[in-house]
């Protein structure tokens, strides 16, 4: 009994210690961000691997999610004779929730895990240590550009996801199921507010981008420098950032749409 309480205590202390280290790390990253803006090529390079290479999975998933929403929404709405509102259903669910959340989850799986693995590998092969010995700060040179790239990329990816999803919903609703073209768009326009809905969705994706990239670079930098440590860190990145996205989504939704 005492033993298990002690175990719990040790676990709690460990968790808090990690949390503390993560925040100190964040401070150093943020200090490293201004120099990155001066060396634009570093940022562009990372935008390619973090953002552009995630584009395909985002576009394909967005289209499918939109199509499913169109199909499910139609089947439900048609019972009430309200299939004209399909555009509203598809657009609002994507803009407010699914766009930022699903794009964030995909981003955590695709780009977040890759970031952790890359940084963890650089750590375990002494590349980070080597940089330090060459008087190059790895946080400024390696971590900060990746952090900034992820932070910028996710909102862009989420916006693309949402837009493609709406096109997917349009394709199924109007193209295949015969909802009136004009009603689809006009009802959507009447109900979706730019400031209230779309901007709040964008704000969500900015928050998710910040948190996911932070978790990913921290796990990579903090991992045990062995191949097992790197693979554990990669798993943790995906699990922790997914949980963080879903939890924060609830908090943000409660703050934004009440």
């Amino acid at each position, binding site marked *: 009994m005492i033993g298990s309480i002690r175990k719990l205590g040790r676990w709690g202390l460990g968790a808090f210690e990690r949390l503390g280290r993560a925040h100190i790390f964040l401070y150093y990253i943020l200090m490293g961000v201004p120099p990155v803006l001066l060396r634009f090529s570093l940022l562009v390079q990372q935008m390619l691997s973090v953002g552009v290479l995630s584009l395909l999975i985002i576009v394909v998933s967005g289209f499918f999610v939109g199509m499913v929403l169109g199909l499910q929404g139609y089947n439900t709405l048609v019972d009430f004779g309200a299939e004209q509102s399909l555009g509203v259903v598809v657009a609002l669910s994507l803009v407010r929730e699914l766009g930022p959340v699903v794009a964030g989850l995909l981003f955590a799986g695709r780009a977040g895990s890759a970031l952790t693995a890359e940084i963890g*590998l*650089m750590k375990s*092969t*002494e*590349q980070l*240590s*080597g940089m*330090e*010995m*060459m*008087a*190059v*700060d790895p946080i400024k*040179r390696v971590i900060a550009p990746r952090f900034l790239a992820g932070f910028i990329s996710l909102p862009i990816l989420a916006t693309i996801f949402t837009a493609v999803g709406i096109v997917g919903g349009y394709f199924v609703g109007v193209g295949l199921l015969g909802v009136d073209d004009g009603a689809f768009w006009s009802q959507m326009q009447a109900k979706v507010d730019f400031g209230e809905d779309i901007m709040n969705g964008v704000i969500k994706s900015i928050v998710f981008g910040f948190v996911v990239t932070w978790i990913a670079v921290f796990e990579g930098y903090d991992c045990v420098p062995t191949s097992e440590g790197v693979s554990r860190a990669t798993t943790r990145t995906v699990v922790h950032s997914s949980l963080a996205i879903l939890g924060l989504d609830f908090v943000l939704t409660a703050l934004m749409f009440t």
Partner: protein
Amino acid sequence: MNDNSDDVLVRIRDLHFSRGNRKIFNGVDLDIRRGKVTAIMGPSGTGKTTLLKLIGGQLKPDQGSIQVDGLEVPKLKLSKLYELRKRIGMLFQSGALLTDINVFDNVAFPIREHTNMPPSMIRDMVLMKLESVGLRNARDMMPSELSGGMARRVALARAMALDPMMILYDEPFTGQDPISMGVIVQLIRLLNDALGLTSIVVSHDVQETATIADDIYVLSEGKVVGHGTPQQLAETDSDWVKQFMQGLPDGPVPFHYLGMQYVDDLLAGTDPERGV
């Protein structure tokens, strides 16, 4: 021996360092003299690599002083430490080449980070360094395409890129075939003399190290147990140093991991942890 302070580049006094509960250094004194190749030897796990990290300021000692070129390393501010590190090259065991850029860019990396030289000058410098390790024609290869020995030579070219005053070698001979080992042994000596460097070689390969070192320190259990030229150490009367230098299987360092006596262990017949 001439113990003039100008002659000593790295001076370590009463160094204590522990990791967790394990004491790694327990009062180590070392002098690394300018222009010499100094070897630091000892069995695996005696913290030889840790010593290099302490000299480079990547770790801080619990107690004691580490002076490099008159600067007290553990007390340096980060910006001063970075200034010092520009004058120190380090060759990691794995080479630690950046895997996403090619050989040329790896060697150019420190130059590009720390200077504003025009590309044509950087090219000349990089080719010069690569020429000195014999890999000028491998400049377009990626690190993954290099053999272990080549990677280490590229890393050596990179360590020299900023014309440092001192190069630290972390286990440069481990895991090399005899030819590339010979190449590296020779390079360390040649570069040291040609460029007027000071070299610290951390290693447990006695034969190779003995051929190039001017001075050897032998570490064990957190202390310096032997010091002298290769010649002096070969004629030592310390049992421990003899065992290490000649690679004898048993001696002061026992073959058996310490614990219960074999006979007692068999006679006891039970092993509570295993539930026997």
